[in-house]
């Protein structure tokens, strides 16, 4: 077992631990021996040039891809290889790089999906109103508070496909948050947003982090990552080349080389 001994002692276990994670697609080493931790309450950025393996790593953590080797520990428990449903119920919510909302159903029905996943529903509860009422009320309450918080309440009964792009992005985050996750995985939330929307998103993520949520953020928008992240992990060609505070990353020679080419 590569599990660090800290888990059994009194020292707080990091919320997420990635140890020697690798994902190979036939010959291609998309992610190769990457290790890092995410502490509780931290906002960690995962950056790297195109094709660095950010999204692959992200999908291995979220359970959407099976890893080739290595360990992913969540609250000290191994989650690599678990079904995405189990991972979600353990407290990890995610968004997608290419927006995946449910376009034909309403904004309310989109957002409540996460609450349903957390609270659960049963066929019997649906058929006998008295049995399901408590759960139904909890789901409705979680959905309404998420809609209110993200300013989506006025669009609640519109088909989600009718929303503006920025609102769809917010909808996806709102939906993920109704799972009440301990860890939120965001895959390029700023992609496609204009400057104003990106600033708003940054403020929102910072306020979520200040409220105690742990966030792992994969992002291309370098100024935003530098501004809001507590710590940054840099990938290049599937390997981790740097890790540290934004200021240190900015000054790191290896990171500069990866982004600007080796001669720089």
């Amino acid at each position, binding site marked *: 077992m590569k599990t660090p001994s800290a888990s059994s002692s009194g020292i707080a276990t990091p919320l997420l631990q990635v140890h020697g994670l690798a994902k190979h697609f036939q010959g291609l080493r998309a992610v190769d021996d990457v290790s890092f931790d995410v502490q509780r309450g931290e906002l960690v950025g995962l950056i790297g040039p195109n094709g660095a393996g950010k999204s692959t790593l992200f999908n291995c953590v979220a359970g959407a891809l099976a890893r080739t080797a290595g360990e992913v520990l969540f609250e000290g428990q191994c989650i690599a290889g678990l079904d995405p449903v189990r991972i979600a119920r353990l407290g990890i919510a995610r968004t997608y790089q290419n927006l*995946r909302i*449910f376009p034909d159903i309403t904004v309310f029905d989109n957002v409540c*999906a996460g609450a349903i996943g957390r609270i659960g529903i049963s066929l019997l509860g*649906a058929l006998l*109103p008295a049995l*399901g009422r408590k759960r139904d009320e909890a*789901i*409705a309450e979680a959905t*309404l508070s998420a809609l209110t918080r993200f300013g989506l309440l006025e669009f609640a*009964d519109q088909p989600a496909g009718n929303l503006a792009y920025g609102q769809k992005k917010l909808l996806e985050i709102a939906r993920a948050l109704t799972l009440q996750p301990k860890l939120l995985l965001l895959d390029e939330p700023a992609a496609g947003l204009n400057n104003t929307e990106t600033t708003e998103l940054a403020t929102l993520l910072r306020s979520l982090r200040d409220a105690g949520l742990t966030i792992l953020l994969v992002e291309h928008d370098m100024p935003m990552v530098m501004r809001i992240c507590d710590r940054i992990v840099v990938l290049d060609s599937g390997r981790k080349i740097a890790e540290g505070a934004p200021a240190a990353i900015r000054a790191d020679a290896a990171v500069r080389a990866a982004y600007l080419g080796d001669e720089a």
Partner: protein
Amino acid sequence: MKHFRISIRLAFAVLLLAVVPALLAWAGSPYVARLAQLVLITVVLSGALNMLTGTAGLLALDTVVFYGLGAYTAAILSVNHGTSFLVDLAAAVGITTTIGIIFGFALVRLTSIFFAVATMALAISFHTTVLNWGDLTRGPMGYRGIPPVQLFGHTLGHWLESYYLTAIFCLIALFIFHRVMHSFYGNAVRAVREDEECARSLGLQTRWLRVQVYALHAAIMGAAGALYAHTNQFIGPDNFVLLESALVLTGIIVGGIGSLPGAVIGGLVMVLLPEALREIGNLRAFAFGLMLFLSILFLSRGLFSEVRALALFRRDMPRSPWSRRGPLP
């Protein structure tokens, strides 16, 4: 708006239990009453199929399999073993639920056209089995002389009594569809339909949800089959050909895929329209086809779309903003 919500259900119950029987009594014709019953049973089949194909997004052609299983279970038990209606009904529901769960686990791994083709194969093999397993099903002869429904020692011999039984059955089935389609359960099933992978990442057990919906649709169709066998008193393989599945499917597409009012409209149209067109003789099939073609061309979401149906019934959700706000435009 609670009184308004109840009044939709109440109005429908009054329609089925008072207005229609009054009209039937006025017409005084067992043929019209039989037609009304056929409409109600078709509405139940449409509702069950719309829950599976509309709400869960699984395009299915196996209506006749479970409808037929229920009907043959009732026929075989009552004719060969003299069991009563309630026993047949329970047996039909039991068998179709069990088979629904078993097939469900196998089938829900498939989606879209693959699911449709697999269910079509089921429908064809069911018909072939019924034709060839003569010892059990009496092959092409079918079952004659299925006794009329007996409840608590009383035989429902009169056509009006028989109609009432069917109407009550239809109302119960509609209530089940209503609760499934217009609840958070329905929301979860629709989320699975829209994007399965994403629904899994939100903690929804997508396959299990689909199996449940599949088994429920099978059970209700099985019950409808048992009722059909006992009220029609004759069943044969010709009642359960693939074309019948396609007709029910066409009905919900015309009525509105994913919408419960759409299923009711679909059931009505698919039974009554061919009857109404009887006058024009050979042109009937052409006129029928033309109407379906036009309705699909101009009303791609059906006469009563899912969006409208959900807006109408959304007030049933607890403590949603709509429960305070009232009906939507």
